[in-house]
């Protein structure tokens, strides 16, 4: 069998969008609800507690946001780290993301939110981020973030972008170049190398977190 690319496109298009069910899946409870938490709700809380700290960060527009409450909760997201003066892999990864945002433009800022967080918040002020946001032609839905160094570190450690050896971990030129993507309410999390092909990155985001009921594409 040969599934043509057009058919494939159709197959992916037919898959229900996970974003459409986010509200139904939400673990948020009205206040005063005293029912015991379900296994799923407990798992979601554990993930939030261990990995998704609710620390304040600042967008390239200077807006103060809380990492969990405002950026991740009930959302489908991508997360990565970069810094402005990085001349090694950051430009490649960020250029890749710039391509990814175009490939996923139909979902961006509606069901998908992309976040790039600076590893050097001391240098990368809001103004610096704004400049870079423009430089990478970031569309609405792709937000650049800075914050207090300690808060940024909490996010980095939370999403596992660390090395076993703290000496290596402090060397920012070796920083983790992966792109973490997740569907927070459905607890689907994975990651791809930031330097993978942008097309494959976009597709991985589609079939892992955006439309997780996609069919992998059989081809002969």
């Amino acid at each position, binding site marked *: 069998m040969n599934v043509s690319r057009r058919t494939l496109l159709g197959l992916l298009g037919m898959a229900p969008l996970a974003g459409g069910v986010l509200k139904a899946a939400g673990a948020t409870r009205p206040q005063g609800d005293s029912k015991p938490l379900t296994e799923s709700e407990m798992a979601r809380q554990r993930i939030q507690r261990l990995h998704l700290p609710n620390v304040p960060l600042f967008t390239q527009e200077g807006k103060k946001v809380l990492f969990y409450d405002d950026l991740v909760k009930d959302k489908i997201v991508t997360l990565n780290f970069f810094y402005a003066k990085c001349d090694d892999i950051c430009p490649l990864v960020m250029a890749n993301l710039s391509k990814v945002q175009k490939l996923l433009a139909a979902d961006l800022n509606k069901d998908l939110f992309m976040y790039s967080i600076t590893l050097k918040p001391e240098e990368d002020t809001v103004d610096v981020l704004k400049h*870079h946001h423009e430089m990478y032609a970031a569309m609405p839905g792709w937000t650049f973030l800075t914050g207090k160094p300690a808060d940024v570190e909490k996010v980095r450690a939370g999403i596992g972008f660390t090395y076993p050896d703290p000496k290596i971990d402090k060397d920012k030129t070796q920083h983790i170049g992966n792109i973490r993507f997740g569907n927070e309410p459905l607890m689907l999390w994975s990651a791809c190398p930031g330097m993978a092909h942008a097309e494959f990155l976009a597709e991985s985001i589609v079939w892992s977190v955006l439309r*997780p009921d996609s069919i992998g594409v059989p081809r002969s």
Partner: protein
Amino acid sequence: MYYNVFGEKVSRRRFKEMEEAAKNRRELIAAGLTSRRDLFKMGLLTAGGMLVAKSGLSARAQGLGQVMPQSGGGSNTSPGTQQNCLPGNQTASPATQPFRDPLVVMPQPRKLSSLSPTPTLNPNVGAGEVRAAAFQAPGISSSRFPVVPATLYHFTQKQFTARQTSDPNIGPQTIWGFDDGSGPRSPGPTYQAFYGAPQLTRNTNSLPATNQVNNTGFGMPSVSTHLHNGHTPSESDGNPCDFYPAGHFCDQYYPNVLAGFNSTNAPDGDVNEALSSLWYHDHRVDFTSQNTYKGLFGFYCLFNQFDTGNETTGFRLPSFPQFDIPLAFADKVYDPTGKLVFDLFNLDGILGDKFLVNGTIQPYLVVSPRRYRFRLLDTGPSRFYEFFLTGNVGGAGNPTTNPFFLIGTDGNLIPKPVQVTSVRIGPAERVDVIIDFSQFSHGSTVYLENRLNQLNGQGPTAVDSQLFPNGGQSTGTTECQNLGVTTNGAILPPNFNNGQNLVLQFRVTGPQVADNSVNPATGPSYYALPSTNVDPRIVRTFKFDRLNGQWSINGQFMDCGYGNGGTGGESTEMFRFAVRQNSVEQWLLTNLTGDWTHPVHIHLEEHQILSRSRVAPTVPTDIGRKDVTQLHPNERVQLFFRFRDWLGKYPIHCHNVVHEDHAMMAIWHVVPPGGEDNINVP
């Protein structure tokens, strides 16, 4: 006034340069130059990875000569760094009493006489099948490999509730398993397959869809079931990219035929290529670690006229299934409430602090004083084991270390049994062993104990390559040792830390029964090793590396090649290289990292290890036919391959499944002669 991106005042000329730099970057992006290779081609990237500092390209080109200000890095208390070097990086599991529960021996699956709808040569798309292509085997011989073979199975992936211990500290778990019609279980049923009897399994995904509130914190209800070590046609192999969601199925054809049947050794193949202990597991791209951890694996035992499963015939190995028992090892972590957890955010590898055998924490097995064959499988995700047979635990004097026989590596019988006192396996590797319990007094207790010291996903703390004969000697270091963390050497003492590593308890309290199996000490012969004295058509090099935390093979990453599916982008190439059907190749696996061990698995064909860092292998588990080879730090391993019989796509990947899920994998394909011009790994 002009300011640079860092808020510093700059001259008008510099500001213009900066604007130019920004414009250049936009152009790079617009031109789609996003890979390292592209930038190399354009001469814009130096070998060291720096963007060429020509005026205008980089916003900080003018400042390259300056020392970069180092960030303070904020707090030093980031979890996941230093703790990674300590056992149990995550919350320590609740205490459990060991040896409360009997070992579960998985039953054989229900055979069916028909399937509805009837399997078809081409994928039955209308009925919801998602197979990649037509079955290859019936195309070779429709009489020998009928589209609907006599042996049929229907496996359904399901979510269910199971106890992994009766200890009240750890309650029922919501896990995934395979249902053959008699109810879901994990590990799944153990196939009893025979050479010459092709079989077909329909794998139906009935896991709960992602749009329901039923997720327990990890797992992707999307599957592709791989038969590990199978000489399987590509459409039935369970390729990571051929995944499908709930509501779909895939018919997978297992010809149970010896390698070479349609090439070097027609028509029956080479019996010296016989496979014995295979296993099946989920292989969904990016989610294999979560899905296998959640329970999607099982055994596939393959028999023939020599390895018969009957101890009175052939090689007279202990009879299946009573005295021939598959053992699947897994290490897991539970949260303080006793719920199974998985660290979704780990990039290095995951270790658990509870050892499970066949789905039960530290079980016991009542054995008779006779010989048993055990098929040991490391299901991962990331732990290596070195198993010892420990006796006299808790008695007067020291614990004892007892001998046993190694008879198979990666599920394949080796030429002769080898007596050993320990055997090491990494993720996805198997060893077959024979333990004679008549050497112990009736009523005594002995243990299978893992004495290998491993602190994190990097691999065992001793990282030299051929360390099996003198286990305990370490010539390398891991990142943890650099930290000065006490590692207790590579091999831990027996009954270490109150017996935490006693994985399985044998109670020699079973009745005296006849033992008609051959004593391996008498030196029986099994299969000879196929000759490797053939010039390879090609020698390929595979460099396993870590680039800014990104696991890579030859500097590139996993790609299913579906570039434009639904996203409108250009398609990318799935296949990294092509192998000529029925040809001989040598593959050089090289590990560019100095502190990581990668268990490297290659689908379709077994290999033999010709050398490790230019020295012929010396350890018993290396001298045999393999499908996973441990690639130790800084090592170069030379493998011999024949790629025979089937066509199509297969992967090479690291079987530390956390590395695999983060792109340490490449898809290649077997093509007919004439189509294999692309001989280099890009």
